[in-house]
């Protein structure tokens, strides 16, 4: 039996075959049983399976993209729940990008940030203000709301503005460390939220607590993007860019520098890493992902107000990172997906189901314990269980492995030669008796 498993884990073809069967079965069941969340979740799960398959990376990417960009939307589109699934999927994309951004700050650079949602807010408000009539309340030139075509540029602008805020936040960080940093960022996040919630006066920039309504939906080639199924592709595209950037950076010089100062700041500096610049880069890049997705969020909701950017939101994103596995890109993506789907879909479904049982008299609970209000309770329980059983995260971070042979082969002519051991025989690694 054991052998069989081993064999299977080595056999690429068998794996691939089984995987294809799995995907086919789940997508078929999603097509047939349209409102089955289970089928939808199982189909999504295939991405995770894919991650663990023994295929080369390129093949995985291609298959993954096919599933995410074609198969899932297609299978889901065969019925009523389509928009609902795509809405959740869009939010998964949004949170994944945000969590990946936070992962740079917390997971790579080791800077605990409890105010990360502020950058999301910055992005959301940036678009919200200019893509609604709000801007005309304080700008007396120009023509607002800007059309939905501006959305595409605003993704960039949102990212840049958030990055600037990231650097602004980073400045106090130069001196403050560890958990002090946590509280500074928490304070920063709260400050941003409170300001957005109050800036209807003296100048009305954010419309204060009334929020900004009727934000223009994005437009491209005259097509208005208004449905979740369309936003899904926007979010997916940005997420792919984010994943690309993150994986590239992780294994580059700056990525190593982040991890180095995380592990040992003093040694990092002594190795020539400029602390300030390195930390600020982490903040800026992390923030920019969040800002870009903020723009998408504002356009999708068509309404922004400060209640979407509370401390609880910041901690939720942090939970995604920790739950997935700090510093682990696939882990963080999984963490964000799990938390988002749990919160927005599974828990609601579960409580609806329990409620159904309750009204049909299958189970009987007093009203005070009505399943409809148990979502946070169940969520809390799950968090504890996850943490206890996967303390390093769902997919713990792994270091990139180098191929010694490849490095060795090229080492024909070395400037470093084994030190000459003067009056001794050749010294070997360990001392043998």
């Amino acid at each position, binding site marked *: 039996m054991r052998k069989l498993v081993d064999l299977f884990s080595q056999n690429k073809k068998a794996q691939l075959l089984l995987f294809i069967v799995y995907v086919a079965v789940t997508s078929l069941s999603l097509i047939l049983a*349209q409102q089955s969340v289970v089928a939808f979740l199982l189909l999504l799960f295939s991405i995770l399976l894919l991650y663990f398959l023994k295929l080369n990376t390129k093949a995985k990417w291609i298959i993954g993209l096919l599933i995410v960009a074609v198969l899932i939307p297609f299978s889901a589109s065969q019925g009523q729940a389509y*928009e609902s699934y795509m809405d959740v999927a869009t939010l998964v994309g949004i949170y994944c990008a945000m969590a990946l951004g936070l992962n740079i700050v917390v997971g790579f650079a080791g800077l605990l940030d409890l105010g990360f949602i502020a950058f999301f807010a910055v992005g959301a408000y940036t678009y919200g203000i200019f893509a609604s009539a709000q801007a005309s309340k304080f700008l007396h030139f120009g023509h607002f709301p800007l059309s939905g075509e501006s959305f595409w540029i605003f993704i960039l602008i949102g990212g840049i503005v958030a990055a600037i805020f990231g650097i602004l936040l980073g400045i106090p960080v130069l001196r403050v460390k560890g958990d002090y940093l946590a509280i500074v960022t928490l304070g920063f996040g709260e400050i941003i939220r409170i300001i957005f919630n109050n800036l209807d006066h003296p100048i009305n920039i954010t419309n204060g607590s009334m929020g900004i309504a009727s934000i223009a939906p994005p437009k491209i080639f005259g097509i208005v993007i208004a449905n979740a199924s369309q936003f899904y592709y926007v979010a997916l595209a940005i997420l792919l860019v984010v994943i690309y950037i993150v994986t590239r950076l992780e294994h580059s010089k700056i990525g190593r520098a982040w991890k180095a100062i995380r592990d040992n700041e003093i040694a990092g500096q002594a190795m020539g890493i400029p602390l300030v610049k390195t930390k600020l880069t982490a903040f800026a890049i992390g923030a920019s992902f969040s800002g870009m997705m903020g723009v998408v969020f504002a356009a999708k*909701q068509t309404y922004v107000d400060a209640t979407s950017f509370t401390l609880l939101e910041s901690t939720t994103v942090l939970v995604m990172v920790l739950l997935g596995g700090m510093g682990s890109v696939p882990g963080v993506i999984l963490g964000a997906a799990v938390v988002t789907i749990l919160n927005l879909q599974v828990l609601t479904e579960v409580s609806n189901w329990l409620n159904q049982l309750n009204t049909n008299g299958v189970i009987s609970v007093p009203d005070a314990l009505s399943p409809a209000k148990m979502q946070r309770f169940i969520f809390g329980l799950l968090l504890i269980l996850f943490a206890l059983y996967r303390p390093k995260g769902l997919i713990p971070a792994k270091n990139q492995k180098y191929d010694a042979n490849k490095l060795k082969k090229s080492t024909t002519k070395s400037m470093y030669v084994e030190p000459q051991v003067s009056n001794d025989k050749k010294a070997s690694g360990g001392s043998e008796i």
Partner: protein
Amino acid sequence: SSSKGGSSGSGGKQVIKIATQSPLSGGSATLGEAIKLGAQLAISDQKKAFAKKGFDLQLVPYDDQADPKKGVSNAQQIGSDKSILGVIGHLNSGVTIPSSEIYEKNQLAMISPAATATDVTDRGLKVVNRVCARDDFQGPAGADFAVNTLKAKKIFVIQDKTAYGSGLAEAFRDAAKKLGADIIGYEGITVGEKDFNGVISQAASKKPDLIYFGGVYAEGGLIIKQARDKGLDIPIMGGDGLDSSSTVQIAGDSVKNVYLTSVAGDVTKVAAGKKFVDAYKAKFGKGVESYSSYGYDATGVLLKAIMSAIDKNNGKLPTREAVSQAVRAIQDYQGIINKVGFDNKGDNKFAKVYIFKFDKAAYPAVQQKAISK
């Protein structure tokens, strides 16, 4: 997961579901729960009538957690469950506004018992309706009462910096100013906090004739109590957010001399209301809240519309579009205390604002006046 497309339900009947969306957990759950329970009562009242026509009427309560994001995501799920023909909710205007965009896309009728902000209906969505009054009616009505009846000259305004509280306080302030009152302070507080002594000290030192609070009972009750502890025995006034038994529970005896405008009237004043209160108490073991009756009425309106849509469709399951149109077409539904009839924006033409006063620590307060538009 639920069954497919409302084809069959228990006993071979076709299932019609009504969703409620309101906060069932978190800080304003008292009122959110009341909406759900009101709807639940209405549905169990009419279950038989629907059964006769071959439909199984069911309630699906959703918890929007007073969070816009959650509200929108729930709205998407509601939209995808085709057996749901209408939504009762939300409590909070801030959640109603973005969620209603989704209902609009799904042509799904929504009736809010409680969302009072102007933007709710001012965006001109076809499916959005409410049975309660608007803040630009409620605020000025309060201001009129404060200035002309209570003769307040110097008014100190506090608001909770939510979409609802700010909107209402602003409407009140502007109207009171027009009526010649002096607004000597306009301050914001933070929802969830418990100590408002700082703002109250400021108010006390400015010696107002009246304090107006735009916000909900959780903070309002404490402000009343802490103001009284500071020796401020002046009238304190608020909006529908204070119209809850929790206000009394929190403020205790301090609640005397507190006035409030509500968009829901005192149900005990009419016979139908008394019956409702008793039935409610018997079924849920707790007293009614301000929005219990509106939860009931809003559901009643929705069910009536569905009924008429069924009839129009020869007894077959109507489309959502038909239901939405039928809802908007309702012109004189007799609710527990007032009528419901929608104008072309979805506002209730018969909506009234009621003025209450607490004379003793008991809920409900004593109704002073009912104001129609």
